[in-house]
C-alpha cells in the first residue's frame, strides 16, 4: 500500500548570503505520514537548516518543499506554521506564562472557547506525563529541564499538528531523563500517529526513535533508510564509520525485533511466550536469558501475531556483527 506523503523535499538547496558553500545541498526525499524520521549528522551538517526550511523560517535558495502535495511557498506562512508543531533545544517556553498558558498558546491564538482550552491542556499534560495538580499553574523557571521540554512538546501538540518538527529537543538533558523522554515520545507517537521530523546528533537516539533515518553530512543526504537497513548496509564510508561506533549491544538497544521475524507454526504460536513487535533487541535478548526458550512469539499492540523471533537469529547477529 502506498502511504500518504506528509512532506516532500524536491532538490532542496540552501546557501546563506555570504557563504561559499551550500548548507543544504540538493536534498530530495519523502517523509511518510505517521512516521518518525530522524535527521542525524554531526554539528554543522545542515540539520537545523533543513528543519527551518521546512517551516519557512528560512527561504529556499532552489528546489521546493511540499506539504501534503502543496508547495509550502504557496501557503500563508503563519497558518502553515500552526499546522506544524515546533520544539527546539532550549524549549523556548514563555517565562512570564504559566505551564497551562504556555501549552494553550496556539488554542488561544485560534480563539478556542475557554472550556475547550482547559480540557485540551489537561489532556496534553496527561499525555506528556505532567501532573496537572502540581504543574498547571507553575512557571517555567520552577521546572527542571526535562519537565520544561515536556511542556514544550505539549505546547507544540496543542492544536493537533499533523507534523512535528523537533530540533535536538533532548540535547541539553541528562542521559536518564533523556531516555524517559525518548520512550514517552515513542509511546505518544504510537498513540496519535502524527509525523515527526526529529533532528539529533546522537546516533543512539536517531536509531532508537526512527522509522527511518536521514544521515546528513556537509548538507548532503548520505543515506535515507530504516535503522536496520542503515546498520546492516551502510551506503558509504561516512555512514559505515558513523554506525560502527560502539559494540553490538549498542545496536541492540536501538533496533526492534521487527527485522528478525520469521514464520511461526501454529503449535509455536499456541505455546510460545509473547512479546510486542516494538521490543528492542536488547530487551528480547534479556527475555531469552530469563526464560531460556528457543523462540518468542511477536505480536502487534492489538494482539495480531506477526511470527516468531528465535534466539539463534539474535545470537548470529551478535556474532557476525550487524553488518552483513
Amino acid at each position, binding site marked *: 500500500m502506498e502511504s500518504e506523503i506528509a512532506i516532500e523535499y524536491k532538490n532542496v538547496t540552501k546557501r546563506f548570503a555570504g557563504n561559499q558553500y551550500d548548507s543544504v545541498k540538493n536534498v530530495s526525499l519523502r517523509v511518510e505520514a505517521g512516521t518518525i524520521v530522524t535527521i542525524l549528522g554531526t554539528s554543522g551538517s545542515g540539520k537545523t537548516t533543513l528543519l527551518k526550511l521546512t*517551516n519557512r*523560517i528560512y527561504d529556499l535558495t532552489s528546489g521546493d518543499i511540499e506539504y501534503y502535495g502543496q508547495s509550502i511557498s504557496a501557503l500563508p*506562512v*503563519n*497558518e*502553515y*506554521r*500552526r499546522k*506544524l508543531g*515546533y*520544539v*527546539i*533545544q*532550549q*524549549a*523556548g*517556553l*514563555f*517565562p*512570564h*506564562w*504559566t505551564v*497551562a*498558558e504556555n501549552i*494553550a*498558546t*496556539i488554542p*488561544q*491564538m485560534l480563539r478556542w472557547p*475557554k472550556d475547550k*482550552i*482547559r480540557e485540551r*491542556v489537561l489532556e496534553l499534560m496527561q499525555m506528556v506525563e505532567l501532573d496537572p495538580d502540581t504543574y498547571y*499553574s507553575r*512557571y*517555567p*523557571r*520552577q521546572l527542571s529541564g526535562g519537565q520544561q521540554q515536556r511542556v*514544550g512538546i505539549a*505546547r*507544540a501538540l496543542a492544536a493537533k499538528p499533523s507534523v512535528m*518538527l523537533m530540533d535536538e529537543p533532548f540535547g541539553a538533558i541528562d542521559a536518564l531523563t533523556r531516555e524517559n523522554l525518548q520512550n514517552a515520545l515513542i509511546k505518544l507517537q504510537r498513540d496519535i500517529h502524527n509525523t515527526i521530523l526529529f533532528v539529533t546528533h546522537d546516533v543512539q537516539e536517531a536509531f532508537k526513535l526512527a522509522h527511518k533515518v536521514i544521515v546528513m553530512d556537509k548538507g548532503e543526504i548520505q543515506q535515507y533508510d530504516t535503522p536496520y537497513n542503515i546498520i546492516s548496509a551502510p551506503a558509504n564510508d561516512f555512514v559505515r564509520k558513523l554506525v560502527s561506533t560502539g559494540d553490538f549491544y549498542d545496536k541492540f538497544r536501538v533496533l526492534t525485533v521487527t527485522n528478525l521475524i520469521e514464520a511461526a507454526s501454529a503449535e509455536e504460536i499456541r505455546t510460545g511466550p509473547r512479546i510486542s513487535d516494538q521490543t528492542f533487541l536488547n530487551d528480547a535478548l534479556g527475555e531469552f536469558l530469563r526464560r531460556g526458550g528457543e523462540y518468542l512469539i511477536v505480536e502487534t499492540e492489538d494482539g495480531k501475531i506477526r511470527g516468531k523471533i528465535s534466539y539463534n537469529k539474535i545470537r548470529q547477529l551478535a556474532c557476525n556483527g550487524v553488518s552483513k
Partner: protein
Amino acid sequence: MIRYLVRHWDDMLYMTWQHVQITLLAVLFAFIIAYAVAMLMYKYRFLTMPVNGICNAIFAIPTLAMFSILIPVTGLGADTAIVTLVLYNQFILTKSIYTAFTGIAPSVIESAEGMGMKESQIYREVKLPLALPGIMSGIKMSVVSTITMATLAATIGAGGLGVLLFQGIATRNWNQLLWGVILSTLLALLASTLLQKVEDYTLKKSRGEGSGKI
C-alpha cells in the same frame, strides 16, 4: 531655616512643580524618541554602532556649552532646558531599551515564530512584557538623572529648584541653598523609590510570578 520655609513655602512649592514639569516633559519626549531609535537599532543591527557613537558624543558636551549652542535656536527658558535634557537622555534610554529587547532569549522568540504567532502578537504578548523591566530600569535612571541635571535649567531662566541653589550661592543665603539641596534630593529619592517599585513589579511579572489567566 524654618523661618525661610514659612516665608517662602509658596515659591518653593512652585519651583518644585516647575522642576517636576521640566523633568516629566523632558523624559516623555526623550522616551518617545529613544524608543523609536531603539526599535530601529533592534531591527537594523548595523545602526547600533553609529547611534551609540552619536549618543556618547552628545552626552560628552558640557551642559553650559549645550545651552549656548541651543539658545540661538530655542531662546532662553524652559524650551532650551528641555531640549538639552531630551538629548542627554538618549544616552541612557536608547541603550537600556535596546538591551531590554536584545536580552530576550532567542529560543523564546524562535519558538514563538515557529508556532506561527504574528509579528504584532509576538511583540505585544512576548517581547514587550519580557523587555519591560529593562525599559523601566532605563526610565528610572533617566528620571533620577534628569531631576539632578534639571537644576542647571535655572541658569537660563527656566526655573525649577536650581533657582534656590544658584540664588542661594549668589546671595550667600545658606538657608535658601540648603532648601534647594534638600528638595532636589528628596524629589530624586522619591522618584527613584516609586519607579523601583514599578520596575520590581514588571520584573516579577516577566520572570513568572502570580497566578495565570487560565
